[in-house]
């Protein structure tokens, strides 16, 4: 799973992003407790509104629901083909 386009409809709180050239990637999760969490190779940041129209802070994140962890069993973790998403306390 390495794009935000096909597994994350507008009702999803998670966006994956990949720059084709240079093979750069990132992930944005809209949470209830920490606001926006942005994870990328450089590290994790939270509580801020990512900016930019082409990157992981693309506008549709504003329209999405906050993550409720699927009532304790996050489906994104279960279905991630490469097991790159983990749920931690």
């Amino acid at each position: 799973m390495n794009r935000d386009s096909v597994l994350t409809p507008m009702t999803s709180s998670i966006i994956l992003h990949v720059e084709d050239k240079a093979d750069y990637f990132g992930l944005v999760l809209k949470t209830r407790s920490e606001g926006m969490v942005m994870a990328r190779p450089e590290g994790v940041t939270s509580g801020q509104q990512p900016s930019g129209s082409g990157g992981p802070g693309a506008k549709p994140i504003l329209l999405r629901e906050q993550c409720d962890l699927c009532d304790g069993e996050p489906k994104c973790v279960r279905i991630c083909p490469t097991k790159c998403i983990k749920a931690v306390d």
Partner: protein
Amino acid sequence: MFLANGRAGVIDLSSGEVSEQGLEEGLLLGRQSSLEVAERLASEHGSDSLVLGTGILTGSLVPAACAGVFRGPNGRAPLLGHAGVELKLTGFDFIVIKGAAPEPGYIWIRDGIIEFVPAPALKGMDSWGRTDKVRDQQGDRKIQVLSAGPWGDARSPIAQFVTNYWGGEDKAGLGAEFGRKNLVAVAFRGMGEFEVSDAGVHFESCARLRDEHISRLGRGEGLASFSKAAAREDFRSLVHRDSACFGCPYPCRSFVKVDEDPKVMALASKEPGYLHYDIVALEKAHSLGLSAREATQLMTKCARAGVEPCSLMSSGPREGFEGLLASPKEVTPASKDLLDSAWGSAISDRRMNEVCLGLGLCPRYWAKATFDLGSFGPCVESALGRGLRTDW
């Protein structure tokens, strides 16, 4: 109708007319569905039509359900990466492209809309420039762009269409069809959604099947899991990351960098790099004595120009490759046997390839995972509310 839009979009480039036609569920569920339907549409609209299509399982949660198909007069090629799924999410299961445009331009498909966008400035540009330009014009970096660069414009028999920036899927000379139709690109973006019959069962059955595959296949090594050419030390030293298509747990693509430290992943990185997928081209390059770095540089140039690299490398001594790339010439395609082996030595069952591709599944993955319709029956039935035809 589950997992399908139930319609094909048709654009006649000669007249500019755009229309839609319905597709019956029975047709979409048929044997080798996308291949059969593509041929049927081509026979209906003219054998010189190009047909882009998707399988009934494309975009489902069945492992590696990433594939679409591009059918031309002289052959077909898979649409992998995220192109197949994005195409299906545009609102069309198939797109038929008829005639030839009076001026250069690209087809732009999204949200159930097909239009021709005049773009004479893109003619002559390389495929990377076209992808960047289309994405800039339409304001979305996630648009999928098929184009064939200047070699496609020149209708070279060894032109290859490139998906966004990367080549390897087109071994049928489909790139030349872009030139014949005066098309500089075909672009699409999928923002739709699909219903499945029982989402909970589909999710769980597909996750279980995927887990079973992963436990059996073990840890993948990208392209090196499929070809010794990518297991060489000089290739491994260039690998930045392995990359999977939609829904694939066992990546078969390896992204390499030749000028920057491949171990660094940062937004500040400048080198475009190259996504290796084309096993036969890499093996051909190595057989000619090219290092992994030299092979990557050559294949990058081929992707930008819209050239099928095996054919280029079969056309003469390696010293002449740069000269050939500089301007499209009449170069004979490589042998059919070589091009037909594009899926790699792991796949020898042509029929299985076609069944997989027709369903929307990646043949390269399913050759590794062992294709067995019974193994994913619950995944299919929960998605479609019925089974597939089994008379194949």
